[in-house]
């Protein structure tokens, strides 16, 4: 039997999720094909913990420098380089903490759960390298509450790693000591926001803090300097520590080196999670390429796609040739976010599709800021009315008005040749503490701006009903 084909994880998981195909560089998914990829035996047999050993043989500052030179962009959404972030902590302030963000719940995003289920030791090794390089004295690994298999696999891996001397006191007999504590949440999207994650880890309601002053690197967990990094960001470190920054930056582009995990879902022939070369792979490659999604289902036409998770403004077929590169996607009116592409074919009901996202953000508002708490709910209700055929022209104006109360000024959107529209570049202005409020409006704005006719069709139906009819006539 080919031991590399049996990756059944959590229930009836029998499909090809995408990562076998093609001959691309594999930085974080190299072990995924092994059925036992989560065990310490497999990990050690495939270069496991060699990056840690190599790092401990160098001064911590050198390891930090290496990560800086590699420009490992944060994979959680904001794309801030990890090495630079570690350098933002005030000197001499200890203890310092590492909080691993495994709360993956942005609509469309599916990669961190795989990294935790399939290769938990890689994540643990990444955490250790980060703690060593940045002088972090304790690590809290926060996994989303609903991810039972990930929790079990990471717990088992931590137990193995403690027993084998890779985690805990005097790691590998060195002067480096750190505990990694597994923690999990209980269901709240907004907890993925880094300051909310810290609140939650302190045992509080997961509500974001104001930045400034609460930048985690300065005032984080228990008021101490704290680094929050995404699971995929940290999973890159073992490979980087083994192969060096030069090898890392040889993949991808100068501004976006290495690879990225991208989940493509919706109306494609072969939805899946793919590790792609950063910066050069285009959306067309991904949606139509042979080694990726192989085109739209049933030979249908592409209508629109969300390029970077539910919060991202939508793209049209016009934008297919853009590469996975923030410096090009931003000016085109959207963002790369968390590496999540959701594809809509020509049969998609656009207002309804927008509603499934707006409802999400309205539901997940923590309630701290009025424009988000009230505005999100308003957007959801008005949009529901329109989708159900009960909307009026005034409702369309009201949607925009509510949107402006959350994001004053022009909201980013893609260019459309069909409508003669130019792009409005990222970012936007906002009246809220975090991005949940604006994210409730993003799908509404994309749908309204790029497909106005679908809304017009929805409200005229209603307008034909004579509103002045007198009872009894």
């Amino acid at each position, binding site marked *: 039997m080919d031991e590399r084909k049996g990756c059944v994880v959590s*229930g*009836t*998981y029998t*499909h090809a*999720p995408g990562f076998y195909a093609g001959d691309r560089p594999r930085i974080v998914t190299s072990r995924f094909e092994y059925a036992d990829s989560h065990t310490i035996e497999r990990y050690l047999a495939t270069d496991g913990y060699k990056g840690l050993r190599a790092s*401990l*043989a160098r*001064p*911590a500052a050198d390891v930090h420098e290496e990560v800086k030179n590699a420009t490992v962009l944060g994979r959680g959404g904001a794309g801030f380089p990890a090495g630079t972030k570690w350098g933002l902590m005030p000197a001499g*302030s*200890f*203890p310092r903490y590492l909080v691993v963000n495994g709360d*993956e*719940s942005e609509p*469309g*995003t*599916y990669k961190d759960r795989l990294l935790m289920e399939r290769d938990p030791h890689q994540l643990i090794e990444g955490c250790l390298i980060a703690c*060593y390089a940045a*002088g972090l*004295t*304790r690590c809290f690994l926060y996994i*989303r*509450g*609903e*991810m*039972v*298999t990930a*929790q*079990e696999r990471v717990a*088992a891996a*931590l*137990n193995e790693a*403690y027993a084998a001397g890779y985690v805990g*006191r005097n790691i590998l*007999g060195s*002067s*480096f*000591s750190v*505990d990694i*504590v*597994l923690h*999990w*949440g*209980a269901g709240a*999207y907004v907890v993925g926001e880094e300051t909310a994650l810290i609140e939650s880890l*302190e045992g*509080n*309601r997961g509500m974001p803090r104001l930045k400034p002053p609460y930048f985690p690197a300065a005032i984080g967990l228990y008021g101490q300097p704290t680094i929050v990094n995404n699971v995929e960001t940290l999973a890159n470190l073992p490979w980087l520590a083994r192969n060096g920054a030069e090898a890392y930056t040889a993949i991808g582009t100068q501004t976006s080196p290495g690879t990225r995990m991208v*989940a493509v*879902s*919706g109306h494609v022939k072969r*939805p899946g*999670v793919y590790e792609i070369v950063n910066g050069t792979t285009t959306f067309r490659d991904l949606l139509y390429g042979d080694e990726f999604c192989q085109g739209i289902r049933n030979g249908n036409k592409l209508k629109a796609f969300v390029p970077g998770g539910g919060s991202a403004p939508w793209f049209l077929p016009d934008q297919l040739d853009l590469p996975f590169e923030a410096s090009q996607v931003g000016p085109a009116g959207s963002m790369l976010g968390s590496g999540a592409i*959701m594809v*809509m074919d020509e049969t*998609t009901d656009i207002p309804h599709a927008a509603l*499934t*996202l707006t409802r*999400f953000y309205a539901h997940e508002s*923590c309630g701290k800021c009025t424009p988000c708490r009230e505005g999100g709910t308003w957007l959801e209700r008005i949009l529901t009315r329109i989708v159900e055929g009960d909307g009026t022209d005034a409702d369309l104006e009201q949607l925009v008005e509510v949107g402006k109360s959350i994001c004053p000024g022009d909201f980013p959107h893609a260019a459309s040749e069909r409508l003669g529209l130019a792009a409005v570049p990222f970012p936007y202005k906002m009246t809220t503490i975090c991005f949940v409020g604006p994210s409730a409006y993003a799908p509404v704005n994309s749908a309204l701006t790029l497909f106005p006719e679908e809304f017009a069709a929805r409200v005229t139906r209603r307008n034909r009903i004579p509103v002045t009819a007198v009872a009894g006539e």
Partner: protein
Amino acid sequence: MSRLTDANVAIANEIVARYPRPKSALIPLLHISQEQNGWVTDDAMKHIAELVGVTPAEVLGTASFYEMFKFEPVGKYVINICGTMSCALMGAEELLHHAEHRLGIKVGGTTPDGLFTIEHAECQAACTEAPCLQVNYRYRFRMTPSQLDALIDDLAAGNLAEEIPPHGTLARVRQHIPADRAVGAAPPETPGQEPVWMNGKAAL
């Protein structure tokens, strides 16, 4: 009734000790109580308050923020059907309606025999396997209405008892930090003290 059992108190104390401040253990402890009772009872919250040294109101304040904690009994099997975009594009709403029809309850409701609760869930990080659902947080991917029927039959017949424990039980593998390996609150946790390995030399 339903304070934590002695065995669970021992687990709770082990967890509390891992954090610099005990309140951090609130969510893990609430999960343990929900595993014990199927939902979070008032007595359990009072007990947890004692264990971490906060007021019961603070425990409720935190607990009520999070979707997974239930403050009244729910079905033995809670079926969370994802309704966010990727799943919606692939037929999640039909699946949800089918579940309501089949079980004769509305979203949020529980069957009279106490076996099933259905919920409309949000993105479950399995978007490429849409439409998907979780039963007590165990996944089922690319579900059709007939597969859902079969799943409900299997659950009712007890065929999946091993894979899917009753509501409240999450991970069945727990982290255990051996005392001789733990760093704990010893240095480098001492305020202001730089960790020894930051001395400009290699640690190995």
